[in-house]
Structure formats: structure tokens, C-alpha cells
């Protein structure tokens, strides 16, 4: 029988370790502050800060909605008093904005496609390799760009893809005349894919980890070569990850600002660039707000359609369908 030291025995004054005493004090304080009968509300209390943040966002949206309903009175350079839908009409009727929206959506789609195409094998090898050195190298390569930031990376691409950049120099070595690699649509998509790849890999890796290696071994023992095994086993089982990654990459690309601004050189504006122009160049708040709301609606509709098609379960939210 181990002796439990008594606290009031003067000869062996036993003191609990400091960490225990701190925890006890914290517990005591917590019990005072949040008595047991409050426990049904604990969930609400924990989600409160997040709700507050979302609330501020929603408030901002209402502000935007309000200002989008006033046109800019150019005579006095102030928003009109009366409510009007003119801003929306202007956006709808403008061929330029139509092009900007189409370009944003198309670029986002292309970015999703190419990013997933590149991220899947990357994540797969990272998850499946038996050599820890390879896994570590892939992980470090993955995280490095995060420390650099989007603008600096875009700037790096400017240097690499410029007329006297590394890319053109390399082409020059094989006797190809310098070509214009920047300030066009492919350059923007390239920049976006490069920017999004780490996000996609990070979202795919857990999905692939969840596929037991043995499942693939089983497929091969049942007669599937690696391509069939990939197509019939890995792809369907990784679907939740693919859709989740696709949504994140898609929405981030759709709303991106830096890549079109820097790699597009003003000729490849996305919706965010158009909004920026309205707010900070022409100072037409109303039109900018209308564009912004349009972007919100567009993004929400796309996400809504995807979730409706594949179910919330695919995003790792418990319920199946």
C-alpha cells in the first residue's frame, strides 16, 4: 500500500507540484465564473467570438448593399440621396464588366483544374512514400512559399518570366527568340496555380492519408494495374478532399487581386481589380459596392451548387449527403 502523504503532518509537509496547484486554481475560478448549471450554453459561449466576427462581416455587407443602391452624383461627387438600381444596371449593361466576370470565372476554373492536376500526385507521393527524407523534402518545399507571401512571389515571377528573365534566357539557349510571357491571361493563370498549389496539397493530404495502403494493395491483388487502381479506388475515395480543395482554390482564385494586377499588367483584370478601381481610383463607391456584392453572390452560388451536387459530407462535415 503506497502511503498518501498527509498535508497537515508537520514533518513531511507535502506540497502538490506547482502545475497541479495552478490547474486546481484555474478549475476553481472557472467553476465560480461558469457554474455547472450553465453547461448547456457552453457550446454557444465557445462559438460566440466566431459569430461576432461573421456578424461584423454581415454588417459590412449590409453597408455595401446600401451604398450600392446610390449612384455617384458627379456634380458634387457625393452619393445620391435616392435609392436606385442604376449601379447594377450599369454593371449588367457594360461589356467590359461582362468580360471581367467571364475572365475571373474562367481563370478560376482553369486554376482549379491545373492545381488539382498537379497537387494530387504531389500529395499522393508525399503521403505514400516510405522514405522519410522524401516526405520531409516535399513538406519543406510545400511550406516555403507560405513564408514569402503572394506579392513577393508574383514579383519573383515577374523577374523569372520577364523578357530578360530566366525563362527567356533558357529559351535563348536552345535558339528561341525571346517571347512575351508576361501580362497575358496564361501568365495570370500560371501565377494563380503556382500560388494555390500548397493550399490544394495541404487539403488533399489528409484525404489521401485516410485511404489505407492496404486498399490499394488489395486492388492490385484483384487485378488492377496502378492506373486502374488510381482511377477506381484512389480517385473516388479522395473525392471529398478533391472537392474541398477545388472549392478553396476556386473561391480564392475567383476573388484574387494580386496575380491579375501584377502578372496581368492591367490588361487582365479580375472582379477584385475592378472593385479596387471603383473604390480607390474613380472613387465611385456605389459601383464598387455593386460589383463586390455581385462577386459575393457569384461565389456563393458556385459553392452552393457544388455542395448541392456532392453533399456537405464531402467537405468533411459528418452527415452523408
Amino acid at each position, binding site marked *: 500500500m503506497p502511503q498518501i502523504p498527509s498535508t497537515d503532518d508537520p514533518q513531511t509537509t507535502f506540497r502538490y507540484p506547482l502545475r497541479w496547484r495552478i490547474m486546481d486554481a484555474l478549475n476553481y475560478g472557472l467553476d465560480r465564473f461558469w457554474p455547472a448549471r450553465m453547461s448547456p450554453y457552453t457550446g454557444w459561449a465557445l462559438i460566440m467570438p466566431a459569430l461576432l466576427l461573421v456578424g461584423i462581416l454581415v454588417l459590412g455587407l449590409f453597408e455595401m448593399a446600401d451604398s450600392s443602391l446610390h449612384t455617384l452624383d458627379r456634380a458634387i461627387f457625393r452619393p445620391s440621396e435616392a435609392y436606385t438600381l442604376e449601379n447594377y444596371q450599369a454593371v449588367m449593361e457594360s461589356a467590359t464588366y461582362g468580360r471581367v466576370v467571364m475572365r475571373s470565372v474562367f481563370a478560376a476554373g482553369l486554376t482549379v483544374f491545373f492545381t488539382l492536376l498537379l497537387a494530387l500526385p504531389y500529395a499522393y507521393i508525399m503521403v505514400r512514400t516510405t522514405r522519410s527524407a522524401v516526405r520531409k523534402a516535399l513538406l519543406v518545399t510545400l511550406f516555403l512559399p507560405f513564408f514569402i507571401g503572394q506579392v513577393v512571389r508574383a514579383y519573383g515571377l515577374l523577374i523569372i518570366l520577364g523578357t530578360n528573365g530566366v525563362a527567356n534566357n533558357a529559351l535563348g539557349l536552345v535558339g528561341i527568340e525571346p517571347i512575351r510571357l508576361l501580362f497575358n491571361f496564361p501568365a495570370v493563370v500560371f501565377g494563380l496555380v503556382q500560388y494555390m498549389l500548397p493550399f490544394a496539397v495541404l487539403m488533399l493530404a489528409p484525404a489521401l492519408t485516410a485511404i*489505407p495502403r*492496404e*486498399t490499394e*494493395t*488489395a*486492388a*492490385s*491483388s*484483384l*487485378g*488492377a*494495374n496502378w492506373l*486502374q487502381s488510381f482511377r*477506381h*479506388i484512389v480517385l*473516388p*475515395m479522395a*473525392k471529398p478532399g478533391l472537392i474541398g480543395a477545388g472549392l478553396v482554390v476556386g473561391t480564392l482564385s475567383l476573388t484574387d487581386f494580386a496575380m491579375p494586377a501584377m502578372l496581368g499588367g492591367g490588361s487582365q483584370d479580375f472582379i477584385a481589380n475592378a472593385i479596387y478601381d471603383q473604390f480607390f481610383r474613380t472613387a465611385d463607391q456605389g459601383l464598387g459596392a455593386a460589383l463586390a456584392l455581385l462577386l459575393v453572390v457569384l461565389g456563393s452560388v458556385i459553392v452552393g451548387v457544388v455542395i448541392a451536387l456532392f453533399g456537405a459530407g464531402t467537405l468533411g462535415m459528418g452527415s452523408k449527403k
Partner: protein
Amino acid sequence: MTVQIAAKADATQAAREVAVRASHVSMDFGSGALAVDDASFELEKGRFLTILGPSGSGKTTLLRMIAGFQKQTAGEITINGKAVDAAPPHRRSVGMVFQKLALFPHMTAAENVAFPLKMRRFNPRQIAGRVDQFLDLVKLGGYGDRRINELSGGQQQRVAIARALVFEPDLLLLDEPLAALDVKLREEMQLEFRRIQHELGVTTINVTHDQREALVVSDNVIVMDGGRIQQQADPVALYRAPANPFVAGFLGLSSFVEGTATADGNLKVGDLVVQGTAARRFETGAPVVAAIRAEQIRLAGTREALAACDMTLEGRVCDTIFEGERQMYVVEIGALCGATFRVYHHDPDSFGLFRVGDPVALGWNRRDLKIFSPAA
């Protein structure tokens, strides 16, 4: 009558053909001891072999090498005369049921069973019929449309078996697929395995650490320990004539006594000579160990009551354990330097007959006490 005999003769003829041959196979993971150490065995066509051994004895490793998922570092494995790694995994004709089943969760039971047929480019019009046939075989007729997570553990097990058998592989490999099931279901599935294997006649290698399963389902058992094959025999021979103390201890419940060999092939403990049998001769005075099974020891209140036994000794009960269908007594024998014997008592009327501390007598026949050289 004659027809039956002819059929039997036929069966033995067919059984002569060797399906799997492993010769001097070793696996070195480079972590000290070999995972599989110089394993050699042969398995005849249509036979059911079980590889039995404690955890970490190298069973899975041996099975994976036979399946071709892992390349042995020494030796050779052939299936129907061809080296295992002559073809890539998906071209081999080996069906495997994995320990964790590895069913495809995004497919229904029927789609799981159809998968190997599709991969092997079977005629699409025949696939449905064949899938039904094999679902019936594992008694899952009508369950084809269920998703895997809508099936019970035992039903999932059956899907895995059907999937491994549907393409009629030359060899079926089972890696402890029953380990996760509860005892009742496990015993039921063991009989299922036997029935299906008999029905299809497919050569089967099963891996388990459950000695009962090995004895129930197999034609042939390999006992492994520490990467080495300890013994290969049919279940009855394995139980009756264990080759060494490890096998004697691993199958059934045995008690051991250490001593030295006598000139006439018995065992000497202290001054007492204990009668036993040995498979081989030992030098007089060489250290030996004897083993006897719990059910082969007679127990009574006095030595006189055990007159029919070759050898009787007096002892004292030091523990009694009630196991339901039998009572186990642990008896200490003073004359054997305090060696303890575990004894089964199967008669329900005499359960609780002896209590701890009671003087009792033990008796056995000399052929039941096996003398071995001590474990290496």
C-alpha cells in the same frame, strides 16, 4: 462403394501436385533478427494450410512474400512451378483476404465482388451472374446492393471472401481475417471457410495465432516462432506429437518439468525417475525437459485410485480455476522439487471436489509424457 474409392484415389492423385513451394526463404528487414528465417515447405493442390504462431513470429511477412507484395531476401517461392515475382502483382492469380478486409467503401457489396472480374476483362454479360453465384456461396444472396458500411462485421468478412474467390485464383491467402470478430462469429466463420474451401477445392493458406482455428480448419499446420518453422504436420499429429517444447506449449495446455536424461530414456528429477517417452535418444545426464498435457493427467484423492496409470505421484492443490466446461487444478509435486502441474477435470459432478491445500494424487501414462531437449 467402388466409385467412392475411385474418387478418393483420384483426389489423392490430384493432391500430389504441389501448388506452393517455399525453399529456404528468409526475410531480413535489417533490424537484427530475421523476420523469416530459412523457411521451407510444400503445399499440395487443393489443401488448406494454416500458418500458426504468436505475434511477431513472421506469419504476415511469410504470407506477403507468398502473395508477392514483398520480396524475400533469400530463397525462392513458386506457385504452380512459377516464381511468384515472375509477373507483376495484378497479373498473378492469388486471391487475398486482408486482416482489415480492405473492402472498397465507395462500392456496394456486388460492385466489390465484381471488381476483380472487371479488372480481368471478363465478359460484362457474365459478370452479374457470377457475382450473384459467389454472393450465394458466402450466403449473402440479396445483399448485393448494400454499401459496405451497411453490412455487419461477419457480412463484410463474407464479401471479402467472395471478392477474393470470384476470379477463381490458383491460391487463396487469408491474413488473420477473423481476428477482429467475436468468438461465436469467429467459430462460425471458421466452419464457413472450411465449407467454401471444400466446395471450391481452392488451395488455401491461412494465417492465425488462434490454435483452435488452426486445428479446426486446416489439413496441414505450420507452427512458427521467431521467424522459424517449428513444425509442419496435420492437426492431429501436431497435437499428438509436438516436435519441441515450443509446439507442446503453444498448442493446448502443457506442464513442463526439467531434469536430466537417464540411460533407459526416462527423466530424472532430483532422485526421482519419471517415466516418459522421447522421440530420440539422449546422452545419459544430458539436460532435458518433459511436457505433459493437462487432459492427460488423472487426478484422484489417493494413489490407490489411480492404479491404472504407469506413474503416480502425490501432491497438493495450490490453485483451482473453474472454466465452465471443466475445472483446472494446479498441483504442486513435492517429490519433483516443487514442479507444478496443470490438470483438467471434466466431470461436472466432481467440480469443486478438491480445495486449495488438499493432498491429491496425480497419475499418467508413460507415452503421454514427452521428453525433449530443452528449447534453444
